[in-house]
């Protein structure tokens, strides 16, 4: 079953020095159970493609269909709802809320999605166990290491049980050993049935994906 399908996507950024085409005529289908890694040099358009797939940006031309719905025809709040409930995001810089504990960071998107309090508590407890951070539930991000912060970010991304997990350079800020732990966590997430699309420079991480694609100058190969 197809989760998201991108068809002939092009994204042009108007710049004062002239327009820049970040993604050129890219097509991609992500099905349930997929694990896709997209590699390529810096500035080749990987993150832009990820943003288009994740409904945070709209293409200049082409179309994105998410679970059968044309994303271009959706309102901003409808796209927000899809991001909240059907997509999980993991960022290179974690972007955890610094004033909330690990527990609260994981609970936040669930509360926003209207998950009842008792179920939120159960899910959050289970997710912390899943990312092996049960003992750090009450720690603020500033009290966690980079690897621990990224594990909390993965737990947060999974909080609303998304169909698709998008990760933008998830090991970009981590050392090799910590990156390896995160890669193993992605393997578990995939094995548990969540489709993953990640963009990475990390060859070891890309190697673990079932499908590997390369982007060059905005073209997905």
């Amino acid at each position, binding site marked *: 079953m197809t989760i998201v399908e991108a068809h002939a996507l092009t994204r042009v950024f108007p710049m004062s020095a002239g327009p820049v085409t970040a993604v050129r005529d890219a097509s991609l289908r992500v099905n349930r159970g997929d694990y896709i890694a997209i590699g390529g040099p810096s500035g080749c358009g990987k993150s832009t493609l990820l943003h288009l797939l994740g409904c*945070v940006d709209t293409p200049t031309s082409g179309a994105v269909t998410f679970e059968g719905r044309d994303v271009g025809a959706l309102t901003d709040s409808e796209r927000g709802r899809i991001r909240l409930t059907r997509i999980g995001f993991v960022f290179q810089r974690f972007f955890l*809320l610094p004033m909330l504990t690990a527990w609260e960071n994981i609970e936040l998107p669930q509360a926003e999605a209207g998950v009842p309090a008792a179920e939120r508590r159960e899910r959050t407890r289970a997710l912390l166990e899943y990312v092996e951070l049960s003992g750090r539930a009450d720690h603020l991000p500033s009290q966690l290491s980079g690897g621990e912060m990224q594990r909390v970010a993965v737990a947060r991304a999974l909080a609303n049980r998304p169909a698709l997990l998008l990760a933008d350079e998830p090991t970009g800020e981590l050392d090799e050993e910590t990156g390896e732990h995160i890669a193993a966590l992605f393997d578990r997430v995939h094995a548990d049935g969540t489709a993953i699309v990640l963009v990475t420079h990390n060859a070891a991480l890309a190697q673990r994906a079932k499908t590997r694609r390369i982007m060059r100058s905005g073209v997905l190969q």
Partner: protein
Amino acid sequence: MTAFALAWRTARRYRARAVLAVVGVAVIGALNFDMLMLSHGLLISFADLVNSTGYDIRIAGTAGLPLARQPIDNAAALMTQIRALPEVASVAMLRTATAAAIRPDGPPEGVELMGSSDAAGLGLWRSLTGSNLDIAEGDPSLAPAVIARPMADRLKLAPGSTFSIRVRLSGSLSAMPAIPLRVVGIADFPFESQGAFVVATTMDGFRRANGGVLSDQAELMFAQSRPASGPDAAVAAIGKLRSDLRVFSNEQVIANFGKNAFTYFRQISVVLSTTTAGFSFLLVATLLTVSVNQRLGEVAALRALGIARRKIAATLLWEAALLVGIGGLCALPLGEVLALVLDRILRRMPGLPAGLHFFVFEPQSLLLHASVLIATAVVAAIYPVWLAVKLPIAQTLRQEVVS
């Protein structure tokens, strides 16, 4: 987690910024609160003072310059006529003269001598220690006197003491003999300037001080209207008796004061309170804008995760409300203390009645203070909220990574 809880946690997380904002709003809010108290304070204080006398009508002569008004002539006959009016319940007169209190061990002290036909004092003195002028005790050959506290302290006088005064005649050396008075009470004279030496006595004592001869005049008369008639009818009735009188009800006196003397204070307070509200707005808007700019990546990530714009907007609004609200609450005691200090300084102006205050608390000031602060918080949050909800998610995330 609610928007309020997020705002509270944000304020706690960025403590230095929050404390800076709260202190800034507290200081500016205190000034604003003071300006609001000043905008009506003098008028309220003046009204309290005028209404505390127990008489609701004032009668003065029209002859002479406003600052050197001549006394009312034929005062005794006028008193009888006014007393006979059905609209009037009671009438009293006041005589004043400059005099000198004779000190056995020093030079004479200048005093203001008052003669009151109302032994209870026309409401011109308060907080009496001792007795009033109507006391029957003591040597009846000595006229009773109620004196101002500063004078009692300086001349070491207490109820039961005696002292002598000599009335001064304007423009000439006084040939009046000094007469002894017995102090029956010590009081505050709110219509006189702070520290003034005042001696109040009966009309008989005043006559004695003037050598036993007194012109049939009065500097001021006070009347109390009957409740059934009201002051306006009584003012009209008294005004018809003689055309050379200026007759005002307390309400008219207060209204005239509000229109003339008070306008400057109101204008100053409006300008200053608007300016301070502007400073509050600038402070909170700047701090919130800087705060949002520091957290653009965080906000973009929240949006990418699907957190609704309205929640982010509500969080920022609550953040502004918290900073301004806590600052505004701190502004109240700070403003009260500041008002006390400023009031003390302003009341040192020469000639100002001791009972008059510039800064007077009233619930309306508090309400206006709260309204100004709420409006400030909302307006100050508009730009940061707009910045947060309108930011392009993908572009911001990309910039955050590149930076």
